[in-house]
Every structure is written in structure tokens, then in C-alpha cells.
């Protein structure tokens, strides 16, 4: 199941490489999934069965990969089609966020190698890209959702290295979320995402997150029975 790319990517980090090898069973799931994808597509190409992202750490990594694909595609469109009246400061900030999300996406793609789910096709028709409040509101949604998703899936990660990597990424997503909220004239958090009694972020399970992500996808949707969704 390993490609040359994956082999070299994982070379020199014994822990992660062994862990990937340990998921040979999960790789078989992914292999089956690739087959089922091609077989489930109707001739007219309009009907797609959801992509089952498998189980174990591979499922978590693919889950993150799916969310990062959405975020990267969103900010790519924001920068290529900036909203009316965008300031130089906002353009610079959103460009940097785009770069972070593209790096996250490419990182997961590389780490997953042949176990990666297909590239997803976003559907941002609900977003008015020419309107500042609409775009920044959507950015807030994506960032808050990303943070809640990483927090909610962390305990399912079996390999410490992956847990740490998820932790390295989620705090950057939280930084984005706080900055976007500042641009909107809001505080860094409110009761929609923060438990005001404990000061803890409200994490979300994959079962809660996936329908929200799927709303922004056309073609393949995501399903994750291995993560309880």
C-alpha cells in the first residue's frame, strides 16, 4: 500500500513510520474504499456514494485532511475573488491564512499517501464572495468548526505523534478564529463555542461536524462510521 512518496516522507521518523505500517489493516479499508468509489459513480457522474474514511488513525487523518481541503479551497477563492472594499491589511491577513491552510492540506495529503481520500469538490454557492461580512462570517464558521472538530476527535488518536501534530495545527486554527472574530468586531469567543461556566471550548464529535462539512461539498460527501459518524 505504500507509495514511494509516503515511504520517503515517513523515513527518518521511526515512530510514525512504524505506526503507519501497523495500520496495514486500515490501509486495506482505504484500498477497498478506492474501489467502491469508482464503482459507485453512476454513468452520468451525478450520483456519488459518500466516501467512508475508514477507521483508526487513518480515519482521523483523513477527517482532518477533508476539513483542511475545505478551508484551503475557501481561502483560495477569497484571495482570487476578494470581497468589495477589502483593505490591504485584510488581504495580507487572509492571504497568510490561506497559505497556512494549504500547508495543512498538503501536509495531510503527503502523510496519508495512498491512504488519502480523493480530492473533494467544494460547493461554496451559499457564500457571497463579494460581501465582506458574508465572507468573514463564513471564515468564522470554518475556523470555529475546525477547532471544535480537532478537539472532539483528539482522544480517538492512537499514535502520540499524530496527537501532537493535531495539537500543533488546532491552535493555529484557533488563532485564525480569534483574528477573524476581531476583524468582524467581535470578541475572541462567545457562548456559541465557549462554555461560559468552565472556560472550555465546546468540542464537536465527527457525527456533529461531518453534516456541516458535507453542506459545503458537491460530488463525494464524507462518512465516518469508524469515528461514530
Amino acid at each position, binding site marked *: 500500500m505504500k507509495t514511494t512518496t509516503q515511504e520517503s516522507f515517513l523515513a527518518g521518523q521511526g515512530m*510514525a513510520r512504524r505506526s503507519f505500517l501497523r495500520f496495514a489493516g486500515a490501509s486495506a479499508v482505504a484500498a477497498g474504499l478506492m474501489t467502491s468509489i469508482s464503482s459507485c459513480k453512476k454513468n452520468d457522474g451525478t450520483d456519488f456514494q459518500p466516501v467512508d474514511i475508514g477507521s483508526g488513525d487513518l480515519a482521523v487523518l483523513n477527517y482532518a485532511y477533508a476539513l483542511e481541503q475545505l478551508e484551503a479551497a475557501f481561502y483560495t477563492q477569497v484571495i482570487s475573488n476578494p470581497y468589495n472594499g477589502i483593505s490591504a491589511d485584510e488581504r495580507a491577513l487572509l492571504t497568510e491564512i490561506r497559505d497556512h491552510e494549504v500547508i495543512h492540506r*498538503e501536509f495531510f495529503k503527503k502523510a496519508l499517501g495512498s491512504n488519502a481520500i480523493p480530492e473533494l469538490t467544494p460547493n461554496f454557492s451559499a457564500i457571497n464572495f463579494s460581501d465582506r461580512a458574508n465572507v468573514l462570517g463564513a471564515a468564522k464558521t470554518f475556523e470555529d468548526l475546525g477547532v471544535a472538530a480537532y*478537539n*472532539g476527535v483528539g482522544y480517538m488518536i492512537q499514535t502520540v505523534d499524530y496527537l501532537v501534530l493535531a495539537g500543533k495545527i488546532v491552535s493555529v486554527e484557533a488563532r485564525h478564529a480569534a483574528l477573524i472574530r476581531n476583524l468582524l468586531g467581535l470578541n475572541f469567543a462567545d457562548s456559541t463555542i465557549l462554555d461560559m461556566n468552565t472556560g472550555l471550548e465546546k468540542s464537536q464529535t465527527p457525527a456533529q461536524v461531518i453534516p456541516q462539512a458535507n453542506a459545503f461539498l458537491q460530488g463525494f460527501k464524507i462518512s465516518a462510521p469508524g469515528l461514530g459518524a
Partner: protein
Amino acid sequence: MDILNLFNDIQAADPEFADRISPRRAAIKNITSFGSKVAVAALPFAFGTLFKKAYGQTATSSVNDVLNFALTAELVEATFYNTAVARATAGTLAIPTNDLNAIKLIQADENNHVTFLRSVLTSANESAANKARSTAAIPAGTFSTSYDYSGAAKGVPGAGPFSAVFTNYDIFLAVSQAFEDTGVRAYKGQAGFLKGNQVVLTAALNIHSVEARHAAYIRRLRATRAGAPANFRSWVTGDGTTASGITVTAAATAATNPIYANEATTAQAGAELSGIAGAKAATEAFDEILSTNDTLAILTNFVK
């Protein structure tokens, strides 16, 4: 933190869970504290222990250690903001009205984190050092026996590199950023010890992301102040003063540079990422971890 739901969730995720925790299993029999003796408030911790036994992992004291470590950091932060808001109310620290809402929400978060961590730890497991630390605002003209927010915990009280912390708003923001960015990296450094522990790990992650929101917002407030470094961001670029934007004095830089050690890395899990969108973005896209010892080395300037 609904323990009963948790049990159902676990059984849904692992049909063999009930069997794993059967009292007939030798590993489970040894958990003498589990059962009628365990207090409701201690349940999350008991569950952590139960998990380790049920899944055959090495039982360690690290969950308690992690929680005490986190509590120390939260006590430092809660007292810091309690003092700042008291000084702002007294008119001796000029926090702009618009910023004060954010500072007060951070204050509430940090105090809630203290309360939450204490409820999870229970009094029996809280370290004596933490028990001795109060979160009461430090009155002007006095010195705390627990903290020195000037950064002089090892020297003359109040005479550290941030001696104006509660009179100069820019200095206050710099110290606030130092604590929040430290918190983000410190929590991350503990995550591995809590792997697989749904209750405690998820709680730690849900505090960790709030600390990151604090850090980002404080950095944004700094970025919009007069005289802010150019292109100073809510995320961390590179290391040293590029990352901190703290250059008031050499001593201040020396105290805060360790917070950003290793942040200039552009590779993750053995993969060089600077080819994707440049080296600068590659340093920013991932926040690095701080080990327990590195965190303590930073906090030692502020905690007695």
C-alpha cells in the same frame, strides 16, 4: 463532562468495554478505589485510571501531574488578569474600553479554568504548592508571595524586566502574550501523557484552544497599538523577537525568547514544508510544543 453519557459513548465505540472492565479481570480488581468509595468529583480521574487498566496500558501518575502542571499555569494567569482588571478599575492601568471586554473575558476564562481543573483534580490530588497559591488581585504597592509579574521571582520583588506591567498597558499586553503563548505550547506538550483519555484529554484540548484564542487576540491588540512591530500577527512567525515582538529591553527579550524556541522550524514529521507556500508560512502553520521543563524554566521568572 457527563460521566454517564460517557459510559454509553464508550460502549458504543467499544462493544467489549464492559468485558474489559469486568471485576473478574485481574487488572480491574486492583483498582481498589473504584466503586462506592470514589467521590463523584473524582470520577474523571478514576476513569483515566480505569482506562489504563482496562486497556492494559501502564498505569502512571501522569494524569495528576499534568493536571497540577496545568493548574499552576492557570493560577498564574488568573491572578495576573484579576490584578490587571482591579488596577484598570482603580484607574492606574489604562486599558482602552474596547480592549477591556476581551481582557475581562480572558480573566473569566482563566478563573474558570482554575475552578474546573481543581474540580477534576480534587483536593486530595492538588499539590501543596498549588494549594498555597491565591488568585486574589495583588494590591498596588504590595508584593505577592506566589507571583512576581515583573519577571523577578528570583530577585528583588517587582524589579524585573516588566516592572511597569501594571502601569503601562503595552508592557501588560506583552506579558499577557508571553503567558498565553506559553500556555498554548505547554498544553500541547502534555497531550501525549493523556492520549486516549476521553475525559481529561478532551478537556485539556478544549482549554488549549481557548488559550490559543487568547494569545491570538492579545497579539492582535498589540498589532493595532501605536509603535507595533510591522506585520505583527496573531500567529507566530519564526522565533526570537520576530515571534515575540518584545524588544523593550534586553532583559525582557531574554525572558521571553525561550517561549518561542524551535518555532522557526519549517519541517513537520520529517517533511520539509517550506516548498509549499514559503518558509515563513511553514513556521506559522504549526505551533510547536514546550516540554514540562522548558515551560517551568519560563514560568520560574514569574512564579515563586
